[in-house]
């Protein structure tokens, strides 16, 4: 009972959508080597927030600091107006679903789920009732209650781990790439279920993954992390449409990136396509940068007048994606990828003209 009271003290009532968790200038270095560099981030109550980045970008370090398994070197983590940086994991209203789940092998499914409730001193009958409720929520059959957790399949273990985290009744659930070790088909199902679970439970989810596809699929907002720096935060749509760097753009889906710089006589040019003027709209303020052209912005044209920018390419290879094909073309030394219906790029014997309109490309600084 006292546990519950202190937890309520820690988290005053916050309305959905208001800032719940605030990372203020969070830095973390290991032996003097900075790993997290001045991260500022507000996470809103009830949102599904995903931190995405390549391995080594520091996503797990941030998650560990949120869970209390690690402390920021400088900076503060504020939850509902109170600093939680110094609180140990068992005193925080956060709970983590581990990458390798960390289920207790000497306990049954039921005992695993009831563990946090047993620690809190909740009476047995209430515990069992709640465990059954949670098993129902994560679609685990009731008869699994007494099953040895090590005899469950990968997907079932996943559900047990999630149910156990919910049993702690945390304000925030943290997910450390729990779906990375699961085969593609099951992963899709679990992603859909997790999203559904998020909607039903009304909890705040913070998820980390290196898979952008996963992030886009489930999240309300995404933060892209690159070597300890938060590059961009926004909805999946914002990040896809308006990446603020070529790193973010290339991380989110296949893309074509050309370095560009202003020509003395006006307009822009790229070393990838010598002698050609590249039109960019609206005209950027910077003289040098990178141009991002999404595969779907590229089209095959018959005549150079059909698009603002047209390049001559040769078909190098094609990969069937089922309903469409991914094509790999080369223009000079530059490789270009695009997705089009089967056969749209010809048979590889003749040159292909590829074009894109000035407003469809994205200009970024770097």
């Amino acid at each position, binding site marked *: 009972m006292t*546990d519950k009271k202190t937890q309520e003290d820690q988290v005053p009532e916050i309305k959905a959508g208001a800032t719940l968790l605030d990372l203020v200038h969070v830095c973390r270095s290991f032996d003097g080597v900075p790993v997290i560099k001045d991260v500022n981030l507000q996470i809103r109550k009830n949102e599904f927030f995903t931190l995405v980045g390549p391995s080594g970008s520091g996503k797990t370090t941030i998650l560990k600091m949120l*869970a*209390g*398994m690690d402390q920021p070197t400088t900076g503060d983590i504020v939850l509902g107006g109170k600093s939680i940086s110094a609180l*140990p*994991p*068992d005193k925080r209203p*956060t*709970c*983590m679903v*581990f990458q*390798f789940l*960390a289920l*207790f*092998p*000497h306990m049954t499914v039921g005992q695993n789920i009831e*563990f*946090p409730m047993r*620690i*809190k001193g909740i009476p047995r009958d209430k515990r069992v009732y709640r465990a059954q409720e949670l098993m129902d929520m994560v679609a685990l059959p009731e008869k699994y209650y007494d099953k040895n957790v*090590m005899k469950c399949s990968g997907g079932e273990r996943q559900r047990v781990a999630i149910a*156990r*985290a919910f049993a*702690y009744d945390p304000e925030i659930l943290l997910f450390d790439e729990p779906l990375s070790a699961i085969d593609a088909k099951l992963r899709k199902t679990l992603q859909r279920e997790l999203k559904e679970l998020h909607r039903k439970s009304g909890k705040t989810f913070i998820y980390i993954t290196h898979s952008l596809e996963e992030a886009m699929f489930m999240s309300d907002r995404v933060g892209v992390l690159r070597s300890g720096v938060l590059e961009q935060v926004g909805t999946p749509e914002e990040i896809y449409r308006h990446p603020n760097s070529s790193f973010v753009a290339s991380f989110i889906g296949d893309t074509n990136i050309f370095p560009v710089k202003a020509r003395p006589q006006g307009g822009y040019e790229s070393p990838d396509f010598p002698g050609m003027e590249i039109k960019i709209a609206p005209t950027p303020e910077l003289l040098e940068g990178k141009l991002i052209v999404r595969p779907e912005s590229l089209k095959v044209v018959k005549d150079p007048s059909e698009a603002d920018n047209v390049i001559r390419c040769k078909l190098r290879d094609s990969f069937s994606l089922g309903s469409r094909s991914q094509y790999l073309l080369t223009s000079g030394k530059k490789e270009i990828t695009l997705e089009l219906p089967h056969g749209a790029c010809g048979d590889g014997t003749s040159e292909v003209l590829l074009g894109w309109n000035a407003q469809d490309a994205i200009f970024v600084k770097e």
Partner: protein
Amino acid sequence: MSDKNAEKIAKPSLIARIQDLIASKGGRCAMPVYILMLLGFIAPLAMVAGFSVAEPKSFTAFTSFSLANFAALFEGSVWKSFAWSIGLAAFTTAILVPICYPVAVGMVRVFGRMGSLAVSVLSVFPMFVSENVRLYGWILFFTKKGILDGTLALLNGQGPDVLYTPGMTAFGMVYTYLPYMLFPIVLGVALVPPDLITAARDLGASRFRTWREIELPLAMPGVLIGMLLTFVLSAGAVAESKIVGGESVMVVTNEVNVAFSYSQNWPMGAAFAVTLTFIIGALTIYAFRKIDLDKILGRA
């Protein structure tokens, strides 16, 4: 489901198993080992068992039958030797668990899972020197004008007079059997995934609850194996009571020794040996029923 299926398949009889063994090429290749085990391991035990039920003071087994040797256990002071051996073994085991567990945890934390196993192998190095020599070393340490007494004398003190006591016997055993306890516990502790500890803490458990509910149960197989090894070995120990203990107490192994040599009463010695084997064997089987070896070796 698989358990039920396993029950349906009847266990093959011993004779059928031997026939299978002879029928298979691998079985035939393994024959020399089986024969060696039979002659070198089973046969002596059978001889001892045979002598234990022979007429007292006779020198042939399997020709007579008598339970008088076992009756002798309850006459005189032999039962005391049994009690001392089992008692000292239990004491040694009980002392070594709280000594070795924290050491093992520290080693795993400092050297990592694999490193700590390598380091615990180092604790076996003293065994390169004969146990007797090492025990005499302790006598040099504790004896009057020895290392301890001499050093304390320089400070106007005096060393404790502890040599040749039952307590010293126990000390010797704790010293000798420490590696046998340490190694399995390190193995047990090293196999507890650190993630589980973190997860338990994250789920609200205090450090103590985490240790009690997660770390200890998962390291328990290692602890049990260590306890078993230590208990079995120290129950049969003799050098400690003879050397540092100065025969202040008679251990059962010594009684067996005396019966076979000085008393020339082989059946009596055999009966003591069989009884000791039975007691230790029963405890071993009981303990092993409680341990899942597959789990320890990570095949769960």
